[in-house]
């Protein structure tokens, strides 16, 4: 109402973000239809070929088609971003809501736990969990969930602490609503906006953590096509075959860009800043 210009911009940002992320989602869904080659097929005769008509993004050191690997990689990376954010979001929201709403001892204990996890070196946890469970996506998700919920819990808790004194929350209590009802139906829906916005940048963090893990050699199982591991493995050919790292790298950047745009637009629309 007050700022027509910015509404338009919000819409444009949102659309751009949705187009990018939606494009990747489509590519992932339709991978078998649109990918020109089998992503794990190794063509011994076509190793390390620069981009050409036959291989628009070139081939890697096994002669695998990079375009096809990127398209199939979208499946894994989108899944990583979604699952890597979903569980922390859900766990963090519930814990944060409970801590903020009930306060007292529960809150104190949960806050100390949060302090501990925040102080705990992320890498020790990540590498230990991966070492315990073996490299692979599920270990990655578990590690992300164990650490990631903390940010959401803090966000939600802070929100709930403010909102539980809001008039409509007091009103809900005074109208005889049960505590779970007040918490989950009235307070939570009004406090998740910040978390939803944070989700988007968190998704980027998840992708980058995945890439870092790949760099340390504990990424997904070969020969799965995943962008992070493609960049990490392609490093060896950085100076002679730039295309092996460049295209998967750009895919991460572009997807991250899409997520941030959606996050920006959501943030602006809901009036929250990170």
């Amino acid at each position, binding site marked *: 109402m007050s700022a027509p210009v910015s509404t338009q911009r919000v819409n444009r940002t949102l659309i751009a973000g949705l187009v990018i992320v939606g494009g990747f989602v489509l590519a992932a869904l339709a991978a078998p239809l649109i990918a020109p080659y089998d992503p*794990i*097929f*190794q063509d*011994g005769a076509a*190793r390390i070929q620069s981009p050409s008509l036959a291989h628009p993004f070139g081939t890697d*050191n*096994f002669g695998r088609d990079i375009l096809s690997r990127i398209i199939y990689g979208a499946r894994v990376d989108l899944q990583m971003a979604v699952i890597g954010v979903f569980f922390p979001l859900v766990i963090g929201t519930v814990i944060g809501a409970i801590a903020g709403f009930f306060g007292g001892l529960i809150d104190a204990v949960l806050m100390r736990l949060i302090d501990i996890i925040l102080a705990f070196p992320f890498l020790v946890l990540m590498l230990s969990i*991966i*070492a315990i469970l*073996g*490299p*692979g996506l599920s270990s990655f998700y578990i590690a992300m969930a164990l650490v990631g919920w903390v940010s959401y819990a803090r966000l939600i808790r802070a929100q709930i602490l403010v909102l539980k004194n809001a008039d409509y929350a007091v009103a809900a209590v005074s109208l005889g609503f049960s505590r779970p009802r007040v918490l989950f139906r009235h307070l939570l829906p009004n406090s998740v906006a910040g978390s939803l916005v944070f989700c988007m940048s968190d998704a980027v963090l998840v992708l980058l953590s995945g890439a870092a893990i790949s760099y*340390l*050699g*504990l990424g997904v*199982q*070969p*020969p799965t096509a995943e962008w992070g591991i493609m960049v990490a*493995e392609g*490093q*060896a*050919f*950085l*100076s*002679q075959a730039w295309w092996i790292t460049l295209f998967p790298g750009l895919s991460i950047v572009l997807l991250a860009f899409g997520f941030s745009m959606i996050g920006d637009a959501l943030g602006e629309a809901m009036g929250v800043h990170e």
Partner: protein
Amino acid sequence: AGVLTIARNEDSTTFDPIKSAQNVDNWVFSNVFDVLVRVDASGTKLVPGLAESWTISDDGLTYTFKLRDAKFSDGTPVTAEDAAFSLIRIRDDKGSLWGDSFKVIDTATAADPKTLVVKLKGKSVPFLSMMALPNASVLPKKLVEGAAADTFAEKPVGSGAFSLVEWRRGDRIILKKNPNYWDAAKVSLDGVEWLVIPDDNTRMLKIQAGEVDAAITVPFSRVAELKTNPDLKVISDPSTREDHMLINHEHGALAKKEVREALDMAIDKQAIVEAATFGLGEVAYSYVPKGALYHYADNLRRPYDPEKAKKMLADAGASGLTLNYIVNAGKETDEQIAVLVQQQLAKAGVGVTLQKVDPSQSWDMLVTGDYDISVMYWTNDILDVDQKTTFVLGHDTNMNYMTRYKNDEVKALVEAARLETDPAKREAMYVTLQKLAKGDVNWIDLYYSPYINVTRKNIDKFHQNPLGRFFLEETVKN
């Protein structure tokens, strides 16, 4: 003249030779310490080190070493007392990782300041080769004895060509020429710096930028590119490294020799050499590496024939076989080979599930037999083939290198070869062993690969022998 800077991918862990079993440490031990007997540059001969000469008693139980006039870097002379102390220490010290290997020593005594007498508990032909291990270096007794050992590990004093100036952990080891070295006249370099640069790319960029004189463990994928650089020299030295595929003989169909043979035929080693070593390696056909003593060049080479393999598997009742393949995480070539082998075995109708695990864990899985196949490598650290043979074929406590391979004829032969003093007879025995192992497919030999290092153009004589020792006392920086 000048200081040679060498970039490598890992830091040393200690300067106490008995407390390490890693190449990163051994390669620096050889610069700082000296051993009684050395292996020559070709990796095939034992030559005098601190011991000018030695004699072996007829029963093969008493070794008498005559020490040369040498000094430690602090100027004190190297005595037979020091040598005896060092041998007893590596055998008995609580922190020693080599106690088992030196158990064969009964006594080591100084007959006079320059004469060391070692008595063995039993005959052992490989014993002399063991004296060349950098871990068995001669240390100054009075600086190492008792509680001083901890200090010594950080401020070592040796009789090698160089001595330690400073160890900046994680960053570099700074060595300077040891003026007290017995052959100091021959040493051209003023000093050596071993830099730690873990990332392969950075290490290569570092030498390309001219910030170091040499870089070791060059990834095979980089060789072609580095060769085009006129400022650099790419050096390929033969090594005793052999990569092989372990097979768990106790797992189902893998117990059958025909199945293992079929697997051997289903794997295209040449393709692996091309993809993983970029053609720099060579297809392997014996567990004794090329260039090592007693290597048998005419050993059986099964042809690559996936169709035949498929048929053999069917005949053995093992079609539709699925194998659990343990891959060492973080090792680029290992992962490449895994991916390739998976595709090759698929052609022979064998399914492969890759299971990537952290290398420290894969040891446990191999030991407990929780695997079907896995790729490992071995590099000899002594000249004699007995060590590897025992570990791989001799029914050692490690289940023949975790393969659970059992063949009593082979086992007896390994025992006999260890004690055989006649070189010709001994060689024949090892040839037989190589044939038998190949016949049984104890494992699948994959490839031999060289050490690849790179230096700036102005560096000469930067070489490793097949056991890995760098001859920096000969290196010249122009």
